[in-house]
C-alpha cells in the first residue's frame, strides 16, 4: 500500500468497530425493551387482558 497500510487499516478498523458498535447497541436495546414490554403486558391488566376477560364473561 505504498507505506500507507498503517493509516488505511486503522481507518477500516475504526469504521468496522463503530458500525459493529452501532448494530450491537441497537440490537441489544431493541431486544431488552421488547422483553420489558412483554413482561409489562403479561403483568398488567392491559387492553389484551381486559378484552380476554370480556370475552370470557360473554361466553
Amino acid at each position: 500500500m505504498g507505506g500507507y497500510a498503517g493509516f488505511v487499516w486503522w481507518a477500516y478498523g475504526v469504521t468496522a468497530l463503530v458500525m459493529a458498535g452501532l448494530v450491537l447497541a441497537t440490537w441489544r436495546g431493541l431486544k431488552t425493551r421488547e422483553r420489558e414490554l412483554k413482561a409489562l403486558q403479561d403483568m398488567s391488566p392491559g387492553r389484551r387482558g381486559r378484552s380476554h376477560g370480556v370475552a370470557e364473561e360473554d361466553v
Partner: protein
Amino acid sequence: MYVHVPSAWVAMAAYSSMAIASAMALIWKHPLADLIAKSASPIGAAFTFVCLVTGSLWGKPMWGTWWVWDARLTSMLILFFLYLGHMALLNAFDDPARGMKAAAILALAGFVNVPVIKFSVDWWNTLHQPASVTRMGMPKIDPTMLLPLLLMGVGFTMFFVTLLLLRVRLEIVAAKIRSIRLTQIHGGVGVLSSGEAVN
C-alpha cells in the same frame, strides 16, 4: 477514501433526514417524525465521528498533520457537535415532549451547516480537496476508483436506513413501555385515593 467519503455522505444525509423529520414534527406534530429524528441522531453522530477520524488518519500522511482548522474540517466538527447537542437536548427535560421540541428547533437551526459543509471547499481556500464526485459535469475520479466508491456509498446508505428502521422500532417499543408505566402510575393513584376514601 472508500470509508471516509461514504461516511461523510451518510453523516450529511442523516442530518438532512433529521431536519426534515424535525420540521414535520414541529409543523404537523406527527409522533413518528419525532422518533425518526431521535433515532437518526446517534447514527449520524457515529458516521460523523468515523468521517473525522478517517479524514484525520489520511491527513497525517497527505498533509503532514492530523488536524487543521480548515473550513471543511471545522464545519464537519460543528456537525458532530450539533449531533451531540441534539442528543443532549432530547434527554435534558423531564418531559420528553419538551425535549423533542427543543431538539427539533436545534436540528432545524443547525441545518444551515449542511450546505456550508458541501460548499466550504468552493467558498473558502481550503486544504481539503474540492468536490470530485458530486460536481457539475463528470466526476474527476477514474472509473476504476469511482465504481467501488459508489458501491460503498450505496452500502453505507442501506446500512443507515436499516439501522434507522431498527432504532425507530426501538423507540416505538420504548414509548409503549412509558405509556404502560404511566397507566400503572395513574391506576396506582386511583387505588390509593379510593382506599383513602374508604378509610
